[in-house]
């Protein structure tokens, strides 16, 4: 079981728990504002953009090349940007905090 915290641009804190799936699906199930996941998780829409809290970055890790290429054209990209459909839920990411991009 992994605990994942989302902080939205409205300063809402949503704490979720899951064991399987990806983080985008978890956010959509919990109606996290700002995470749409239009493409269902195949990395083609960039509507699940999050900024990982620096303290959580080592747990989450860097994006793949194809994900980086997608983020390259996002205006709000930061060095801690990820598309959360590409982050699998597992014990390894327990406790991470994600800021939902505007």
């Amino acid at each position, binding site marked *: 079981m992994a605990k994942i915290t989302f902080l939205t641009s409205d300063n809402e804190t949503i704490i979720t728990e899951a064991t399987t799936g990806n983080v985008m699906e978890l956010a959509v199930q919990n109606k996290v504002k700002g995470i749409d996941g239009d493409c269902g998780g195949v990395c083609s*829409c960039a509507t699940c953009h999050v900024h990982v809290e620096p303290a959580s970055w080592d747990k989450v890790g860097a994006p793949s090349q194809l994900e980086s290429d997608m983020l390259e054209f996002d205006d709000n990209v930061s060095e801690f940007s990820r598309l959360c459909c590409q982050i699998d839920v597992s014990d390894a990411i327990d406790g991470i905090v994600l800021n939902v991009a505007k």
Partner: protein
Amino acid sequence: MNKSNFQDPFEKERIEKGFGKMNDQGEEVTMVLGHKDVRRCAHNAKTYQSGAAPGRIVIPSEENIRDIRQIPFEVDPPLHADYRAVLDPWFKRPLEEEYTTKLKNQIQSLVKEVLKRESLDIVSEFALPLQSRALTLLLNTPYSQAETWISWGTHVFRSEGTALDADKANILYDYIDKEIERASAAPTDDLYSVLLASEANGKKLTKKEVKGVIILTFAGGRDTVINAVTNSISYFSEHPESLERLRNEPEILNNTIEELIRYFSPLTQMGRITTEASNVCEHSLKADSKISLCWASANRDANVFENANEIVIDRKINPHVAFGFGTHNCLGATHARQILKILISTLLEEVKSIDIIDYKENIEDLGHFKRKVGFDSLHVKFNY
């Protein structure tokens, strides 16, 4: 077994040069072919604008048959953002349960209706009614309106043999004018009424702006949805093993939908106009030149997609640009995805296999590029 094979006509020039050329009614179009270049140009709205003369960025150009600006499609940032903010919540309604239930009922009853037929043409007797009926949900207008739209035929703007047909376009424009007047006189909860009561960029939408949104909704989602539906059925008719796999692994359905959309790319390309001199793939362009973002070519780019010319129904990472990319990504994508999701789910439940009896391919003539985009007709028999 090759009716559902759609060749990539752009491969050679994409690899060798990165761009191609075609002529659109006298205007030269530089077609951007590589995935990265397409996304780069789509992202750069300052240099490659959408807000040129109405109709000019469409290929074939509609400049001669349309003077109404399609909104938000032919508007650039920053004005674009506010129009889009008004429209986005409405066009996300397909995610709501009530909408999905209605769409499911529509598609299930259509499938059940055609199952019993000895054979039928998928384009005119299945995809067109499916698209038209589903559009009543998107506009939130009475179901009976679909009959009118079906009677217009598969192309709103095109007739047999001519690229553009002003008479046909006028049928649509006159119809929309009447609907706007009706909604203005007696508002309901349909899209016309909602738009007439909306504000963007600090002022109420004018009737002309409302018309621009509605034309986009009709035109953007017609051929594209019809082709997506028809082409997907051609694929499943030739790949019953994929139907079987989806029955056993329903969790890959979303991957399959995105993959079908990538492979078939129902909208081949969309234009932009340069606001200044620029370079595409080391090819220099003057200001006021037309480029095209060739989504269909980008979606076969082997630098991004392994086995790009195959349909891999469980493709995991699929950064396709079939719904466009960036600011102007397809407003109707949520609706289109729901249609495919419900259609395929229904086929999985109701249909054992599909036999193609006869077909006629629809080949787009893009200068020396010839691209199969769909079918003019696809006669099939459903086995159940």
